[in-house]
């Protein structure tokens, strides 16, 4: 069953290469379009304040070992105090923040724009591939897969005796979709690497960030056990000096 099919050179020239080139170009285009379309959102004062508070709380947690216990405790109550502590968000307010986030028209538009700029090129390219490049073997993948993948990889080819390694152009499209992410991260600079999947994950978790992260920080600070590192520093300095003097 492993007879080698001889495939027309024209397929190489007119299917594989153009498809890859088109996908790279569309990716680059999408990057520049998203840069142009990024509406400049005036940062909301409240959100910025909360962000800074969270940063302070995180620094406190990270560097807790460097301040004596009493200072740590006073800072801790400043943050987690039930009445007017910065991180304490009463229940009613926290729900509101989330609802507000979503109904805020600017934010919704932004998310929709980002989503669309992601979905439309993919859909269009997929439709284009299906329309023009279906019904023939496009490529051979160098590793064997089981028969179960046949339906997925060979959708336009209706012969059941062809080796599963010979795939249609639809699977070449998907292979490109996943494989070109690495290439994009190299040519487009850092943050455009995992555009589609990462953004989808971000979309789902976006609206709830502020109030949840406040309570998360509060819990974090409550949990932390203060371990003052300065006494140990003296011992370390002593050891280091001894080593030097040897």
């Amino acid at each position, binding site marked *: 069953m492993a007879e080698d099919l001889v495939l027309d050179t024209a397929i190489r020239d007119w299917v594989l290469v153009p498809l890859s080139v088109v996908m790279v170009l569309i990716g680059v285009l999408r990057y520049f379009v998203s840069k142009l379309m990024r509406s400049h959102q005036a940062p909301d004062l409240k959100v910025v304040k909360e962000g800074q508070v969270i940063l302070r709380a995180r620094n406190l947690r990270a560097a807790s070992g460097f301040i004596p216990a009493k200072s740590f405790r006073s800072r801790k109550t400043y943050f987690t105090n039930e009445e007017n502590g910065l991180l304490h968000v009463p229940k009613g307010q926290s729900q509101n923040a989330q609802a507000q986030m979503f109904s805020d028209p600017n934010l919704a538009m932004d998310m929709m724009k980002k989503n669309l700029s992601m979905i439309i090129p993919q859909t269009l390219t997929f439709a284009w591939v299906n329309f023009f490049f279906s019904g023939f073997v496009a490529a051979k993948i160098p590793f064997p897969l089981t028969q179960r993948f046949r339906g997925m990889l060979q959708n336009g080819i209706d012969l059941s005796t062809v080796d599963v390694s010979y795939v249609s152009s639809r699977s070449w499209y998907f*292979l490109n979709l996943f494989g070109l992410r690495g290439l994009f991260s190299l040519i487009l600079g850092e943050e455009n690497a995992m555009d589609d999947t990462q953004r989808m994950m971000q979309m789902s978790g976006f609206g709830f960030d502020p109030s949840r992260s406040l309570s998360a920080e509060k819990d974090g600070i409550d949990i932390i056990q203060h371990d003052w590192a300065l006494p140990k520093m003296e011992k370390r300095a002593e050891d280091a000096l001894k080593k030097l003097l040897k």
Partner: protein
Amino acid sequence: MAVEGDPRASANKSLGDAVDDLPIFNVDNLQSNIKSIYYSRTFLSIIGGVIAGIWGFTGFTGFIFYFIVMAAASLSLAAKAKFSVHAYFDSWSRILVDGIFGGLMSFVLFWTFAYDIVHIF
């Protein structure tokens, strides 16, 4: 300890304090180091894919080749960091394991591409 003219494994020494339980790292440097590793691995997967395709590896041989390339990359990255990983990264896994599966898709793409162009012409 900046190494001139070497874009890979940028020697931004993130201050790794060897205190018992208080690792302190300069976040920016750490992130820049991690990015260097990511770029090197991506680049190597692409090149490795093209090489595997041209040489005509099929099936498991190709994947084994990929892991060999990744292992060689890890080794050279560790050597670049003078084997004192904790001065540059927060854990061994960053330099040894991170990003191996991310590069796999790029490797497969370029492997298929090169293999087809060269062998099934």
